[in-house]
């Protein structure tokens, strides 16, 4: 098993290096299959690992020392337990699907090789992130996924919008990275370890709920929030949709953005030890879930809607891990990976069909034109809005149940989650009804083309996953890590199921009413709540706020330093001194008149000075020199 770990990493690494170095020389199909195959291979290794983990094995193997001086010891070690195994499986599995899909989707793109190189780099870093056995390498992987996300958002670097989005994403993630680095500092300075095993075994040395542990957890949360696009560091995710759709599917939906959830789950011992921090996580999650959902209701760009739904769903996961329902959180992570990847890829097909037009108002009634996409997208929609017996139904319900059954403030978060569920159903069906429509068109004059099989087959597979993934006993699988979740009575289970289904139906009903049955009503209502709608449509003006509060002042300060402080003040002082010397020099120079008599005068002055000194010595003058 200690060989399998590196192998999982090696596969995408080799793929990345091959494509990065020789990608432009290789024939396109080969490139595609290398890129995807590497991940597929990794998936195979992951399955091998799974089999052993199911056998109850875990791994914590050190391969080499990264830095050792004094008690600062950082190994490169891999840490494999059910949690990371689950992550690996999802990453490689879903990743493989998406990469296969990309072969078709990116088929015509000049940057084909570059794309797959980046994708493999991403998979590599993501695997590193989840497999690393210590914080430093976690951070390295963490930054690696940030980098590849940056690269892929800015994949079409000719687009200014893409470039800006990429930079935004990177800078915001850097904020998170710094937060995590600081967390690592505090952990090291208080516990003198940076590897998980030592860390988990020593957490208890800190006072429970004390400042230190709380601060550590909050700093970790900063990283998690930045990476998972939770409030308040969420603004980069919608813009990240500038990247190719498979990227959005893999990185900004299925895997990377959930790294925050993984982090909290991985550090659950710490969060158990810092209740205040845990609550913060939950609050952030719950609020984000609702907040993002509201924005989702007003967007018209298909990918942006999905992006906000992603935020919202990750909010659920944060809520879950925040209230200690780690298994539920990871469960939802997995199901979400399926249906959100599915949704994005389906959306990608639609976008292709409409020649890169992403405005849902320009679409509609695709059942005839894009049947596969239509049905798969419908499945995804049902799954995400928690339609009974679909994957999303189980995972989301577990979270809501956990929240509601929790005491105190979490209860209200549960209520919020419930409302969000309704909103989810609303905006997802709004999307579906607007973009895909209902009725069958006998003949579609738009001549839409369904995507290639290489794209549709993965979609179908994922659709299947979106249906059945709910039946995978994730909680049981993760129980070695998080312990057994409390058994819930059938009554509570069915009661809550009914409740959430009801809420979902309400959401669906409004969506149906406003966007399928009587669109004029939608217009009327929109005008009635114009200010509120504007607020939501403009994402609560948070981008503008940040621009005003951080970006512009930053530049203003920089310019001030450049134009005033540097040139006038600091350098001014220096040059001023130099000029002063020159002026003085000129003054002295004037003595030299060239006239003997003046020279004599100066000499006599000197002699006079000598006499004065003598007089001063002997005390003939008011002041006295010497003893």
């Amino acid at each position: 098993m200690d060989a399998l770990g590196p192998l999982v990493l090696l596969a995408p690494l080799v793929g990345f290096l091959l494509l990065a170095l020789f990608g432009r020389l290789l024939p396109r199909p080969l490139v595609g299959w290398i890129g995807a195959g590497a991940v597929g291979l990794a998936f195979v290794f992951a399955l091998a690992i799974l089999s052993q983990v199911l056998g109850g094995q875990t791994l914590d193997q050190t391969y080499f020392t990264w830095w050792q001086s004094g008690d600062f010891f950082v190994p490169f070690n891999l840490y494999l337990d059910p949690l990371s195994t689950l992550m690996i499986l999802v990453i490689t599995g879903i990743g493989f699907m998406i990469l296969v899909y990309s072969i078709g989707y990116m088929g015509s793109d000049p940057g084909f090789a570059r794309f797959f190189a980046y994708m493999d780099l991403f998979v590599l870093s993501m695997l590193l992130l989840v497999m690393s056995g210590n914080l430093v390498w976690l951070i390295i992987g963490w930054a690696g996924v940030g980098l590849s996300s940056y690269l892929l958002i800015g994949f079409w670097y000719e687009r200014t919008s893409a470039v800006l989005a990429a930079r935004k994403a990177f800078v915001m993630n850097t904020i998170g990275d710094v937060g995590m680095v600081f967390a690592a500092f505090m952990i090291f300075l208080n516990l003198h370890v940076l590897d998980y095993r030592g860390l988990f075994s020593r957490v208890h040395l800190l006072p429970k709920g004390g400042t230190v542990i709380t601060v550590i957890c909050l700093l970790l949360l900063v990283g998690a929030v930045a990476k998972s696009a939770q409030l308040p560091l969420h603004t980069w995710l919608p813009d990240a949709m500038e990247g190719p759709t498979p990227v959005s599917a893999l990185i900004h939906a299925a895997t990377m953005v959930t790294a925050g959830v993984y982090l909290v789950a991985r550090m659950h011992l710490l969060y158990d030890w810092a209740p205040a921090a845990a609550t913060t996580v939950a609050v952030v999650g719950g609020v984000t879930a609702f907040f993002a959902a509201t924005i989702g209701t007003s967007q018209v760009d298909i990918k942006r809607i999905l992006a906000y739904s992603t935020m919202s769903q990750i909010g659920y996961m944060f809520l879950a891990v925040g209230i200690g329902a780690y298994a539920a959180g990871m469960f939802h992570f997995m199901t979400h990976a399926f249906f959100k990847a599915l949704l994005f890829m389906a959306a990608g097909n639609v976008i292709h069909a409409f020649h890169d037009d992403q405005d849902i108002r320009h679409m509609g009634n695709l059942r005839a034109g894009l049947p596969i996409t239509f049905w798969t997208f419908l499945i995804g929609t049902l799954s995400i809005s928690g339609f009974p017996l679909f994957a999303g139904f189980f995972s989301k319900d577990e979270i809501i149940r956990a929240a509601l059954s929790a005491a105190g403030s979490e209860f209200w978060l549960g209520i919020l989650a419930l409302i969000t569920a309704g909103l989810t159903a609303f905006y997802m069906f709004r999307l579906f009804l607007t973009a895909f429509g209902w009725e069958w068109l006998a003949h579609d004059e738009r001549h839409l083309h369904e995507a290639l099989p290489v794209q549709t087959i993965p979609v179908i597979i994922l659709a299947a996953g979106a249906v059945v993934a709910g039946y995978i006993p994730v909680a049981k699988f993760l129980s070695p890590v998080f312990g057994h979740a409390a058994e819930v009575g059938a009554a509570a289970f069915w009661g809550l199921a009914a409740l959430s289904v009801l809420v979902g139906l309400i959401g669906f009903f409004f969506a149906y009413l406003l966007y399928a049955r009587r669109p004029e009503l939608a217009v009327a209502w929109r005008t009635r709540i114009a200010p509120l709608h504007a607020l939501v449509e403009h994402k609560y003006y948070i981008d503008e706020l940040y621009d005003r509060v951080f970006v512009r002042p930053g530049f203003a300060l920089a310019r001030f330093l450049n134009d005033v402080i540097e040139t006038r003040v600091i350098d001014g002082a220096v040059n001023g001194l130099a000029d002063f010397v020159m002026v003085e020099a000129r003054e002295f120079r004037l003595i030299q008149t060239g006239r003997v008599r003046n020279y004599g005068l100066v000499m006599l002055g000197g002699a006079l000075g000598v006499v004065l000194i003598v007089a001063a010595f002997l005390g003939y003058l008011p002041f006295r020199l010497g003893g």
Partner: protein
Amino acid sequence: MPVPAYSFLMLSGVLFTMGAIGFLLRRNPLVVFMCIELMLNAVNLAFAAMSRYLNSLDGVVFAFLVITVAAAEVVVGIAIIVQVYRAGRQMDVDELDLMKE
């Protein structure tokens, strides 16, 4: 009763200073030169007086050397002055300011 030594010193001091002042005031190089001679004379007076009051001949000898040297200096000096004059320049040290800042 003998004249106290310091009276000679003060006289020489006065003469010396007058020479110096003359040096600073006069513009004719010849006269300036004379003022220098005046200063040297003051020194000689001091030397003579001292050797008298210290009962040693060093002062006298020194004064004699000074006289000789002064003579030599005058010779060279006059020659230089003549040179300057030959160059057709005014006998005014203030005019001699080809070289200055």
